[in-house]
């Protein structure tokens, strides 16, 4: 079970000699990602301010980097990589499906409420 760890990350691009080494490797990777996020958040490059699918490019990058971080925390720190496929899918896909559904419904509704205010049917600035 948990005694044998899979030691390759990035689809086998990087292979570690021991589990301890892999942990430090993942830490370095997560740190780099966090530094990129903070740097982008402070600099806010003008080029990334363009809208893409209703949101700024920069925000998409933040969300994607967050999911990348979440993946490595779950796969390597929580040892999801070493669990059986069935357990992995039960946990991950259940959560992802329900969360995507919830986000879609709520953001859609929030946008609608904004439009109702914005079109002046309800006054909020007085």
């Amino acid at each position, binding site marked *: 079970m948990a005694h044998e760890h899979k030691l390759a990350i990035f689809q086998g691009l990087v292979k570690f000699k021991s589990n301890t080494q892999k942990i430090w490797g993942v830490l370095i990777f997560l740190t780099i990602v*966090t530094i990129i996020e903070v740097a982008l958040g402070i600099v806010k490059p003008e080029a990334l301010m363009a809208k893409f699918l209703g949101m700024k490019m920069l925000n998409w990058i933040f969300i994607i980097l967050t999911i990348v971080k979440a993946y490595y*925390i779950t796969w390597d*720190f929580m040892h999801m990589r070493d669990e*059986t496929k069935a*357990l992995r899918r039960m946990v991950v896909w259940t959560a992802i499906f329900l969360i995507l559904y919830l986000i879609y419904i*709520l*953001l859609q509704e929030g946008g609608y409420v904004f439009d109702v205010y914005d079109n002046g049917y309800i006054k909020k600035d007085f």
Partner: protein
Amino acid sequence: MSTAVAEGKTWGGGNQPLKASYGKMMMWFFIVSDALTFSGFLAAYGFSRFKFIDAWPIADEVFTHFPFLHGVDAPMYYVAFMTFVLIMSSVTMVLAVDAGHHMNKAKVTIYMFLTIIGGLIFVGSQAWEWNTFIKGDYGAVQTKGGNILQFVDTEGHRVALKDFVVAEEKYRTEHNRKDGLWFVQEGTLPTYTVGEVVKGLEAHDNVLVRTQIINENGEKTVLSRAESLRQIKENGTLVVEGANLHVNEYGSPLFADFFFFITGFHGFHVFSGVIINIIIFFNVVLGTYERRGSYEMVEKVGLYWHFVDLVWVFVFTFFYLV
């Protein structure tokens, strides 16, 4: 193998299709349900934000403080530090789990101890964040409609109320239970009244009002001098200093509500994680798992600890970055 034996193995509980122990599987169940709870909160935050998409506070302007660096504009550096502390304590946790697989009691002890320290630093940092947020630093005026008017100079830099408003003598004192109706109590009164703010604004030509509305450049709209005076005089009803669940000098009260609720709920998870870690730490020191022949308990509490880290990664993105 006869049919009876095969059936006994298949249906009698002899199979372990997931190859995970009962405890670990239950921890995963809990984590999935807790993940959905947090997603509910964050999605509700998203809902409120989309509802006020043109007037939501800009996180960079709210969280600008760093301990011991007063007056330095340091957006996000401290949260980045907090994130790093939590990731680091996740690393020590996973190292403890690894040492547990090798039955190395001394190493498990050290790594568990470091994890607890990391958790405490994080909870302390969060308390500091809350304190800074509640105190506020510039002050603002709330309108009848519940919108927030902030003050800037002609270059667009924020101006604190105390820099241009003079407090006069007040006849109104804070009502305490002991002074009158024992079942009525009120919060701290603001330092200034709206009348005093109007006077201060009239006396300082270089102070302008900034509204919540975000313009095309992604910045808050600054009003002209005449419009500033008009807004404060006609619509100003309350001076707001800092933030609580009702009012908030940074903008929409919902922003403060969600900040308190989500970071508070997460902080509570970290706190309970620290407590559980301490219990496990003492069990390790006492040799409970050495006698049991397995450090799986460290692994289970480790799953919870990593989950707390995982949630923070999302809170960090949606509260501070996006």
